């Protein structure tokens, strides 16, 4: 059991902390201009964060107990290809579709 006092302390403090992280640069810097070298690096936030978020979920999925699995690898590759050449919806359909297809094949073998 999680005690009420622990729950509310964690939730309120986590809420405040998370808000401050999100507000940080956007909130406190306001319209001040950031230095050029920082702007240069900030162009790569997206391509820096997302691949590192994705990698462990594809390589060591919890669903397989952290084992490398062909269905997840192929699904990710298909999603990437469809995302590069088609669209967001295409990437989602290709990724999930490939995962299902390979899983069906795997269970048939």
């Amino acid at each position, binding site marked *: 059991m999680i005690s009420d006092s622990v729950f509310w*302390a964690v939730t309120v403090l986590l809420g405040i902390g998370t808000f401050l992280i999100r507000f940080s640069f956007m909130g406190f810097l306001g319209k*001040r201009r950031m230095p050029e070298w920082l702007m240069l690096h900030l162009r790569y936030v997206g391509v820096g964060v997302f691949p590192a978020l994705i990698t462990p979920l594809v390589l060591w999925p919890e669903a397989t107990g952290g084992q490398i699995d062909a269905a997840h690898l192929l699904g990710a590759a298909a999603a990437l290809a469809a995302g590069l050449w088609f669209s967001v919806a295409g990437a989602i359909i290709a990724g999930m579709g490939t995962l299902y297809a390979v899983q069906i094949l795997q269970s048939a073998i």
Partner: protein
Amino acid sequence: MRRGVSGNSHARSAYWRGARDCAPFIIIVVPYSMLFGVVARDAGLDLLQAMAMSIIVIAGASQFTAVALMQEHAPVFIVLLAALAVNARMAMYSAALQPHVGRAPVRLRAIMAYLMVDQAFALSIKEYDDHPDMRLREKLAYYFGVITPACGAWYGFTFLGAVLGRAVPPELSLHFAVPVCFIALVAPMMKNLPHVVAAFVSILTAVVFADLPYNLALVLAALLAMIAGARCEVWLARRRVMA
């Protein structure tokens, strides 16, 4: 007067474009938020507590981390440290968005910060980069357009999961929708060589340092990738000048 009206209609169309661009990502929000509702109830939290956490925090991965650690009776300080580390990436989102929306009134920026989820950052930053002539109002409208379906679904389906006590069945493998949706977000960002180099460095770092605690691998990967991308861009520009 006419200008004001056309400004409004531009903002309105930016809002709807944002909502439409975010729509496919509902596929990850629904199973993820329902699962949170279920996990929260299983951990002994009541409906009000499950909802309060989703509304006060709105950051899925850190909510799961916090609930799991509270169940193990970890000290409050450790729970907070671990859960906040999961959200550290959002400081980078905030920095990347600042040049675009820093001129907005502080009250609006506070609301944007409260609602800053991964999709809101990724879709907005791409839209802003692709359309450098966007006005501030349109940028804000687009951001709020993206957020509307994402956060609406987050609240709604946490509630549904907590009430039903049932998540989307695991046979549907919707856990895989999380990386797939992130791939869909990042693929359009691969515009040129520096972006591709940065992505590779990010993957490599995430693999090599996978065992680091507190999500440090993610923060380290992002920082190294940003340096690699920036270095590559500078190098390419120099080579172009020399040629």
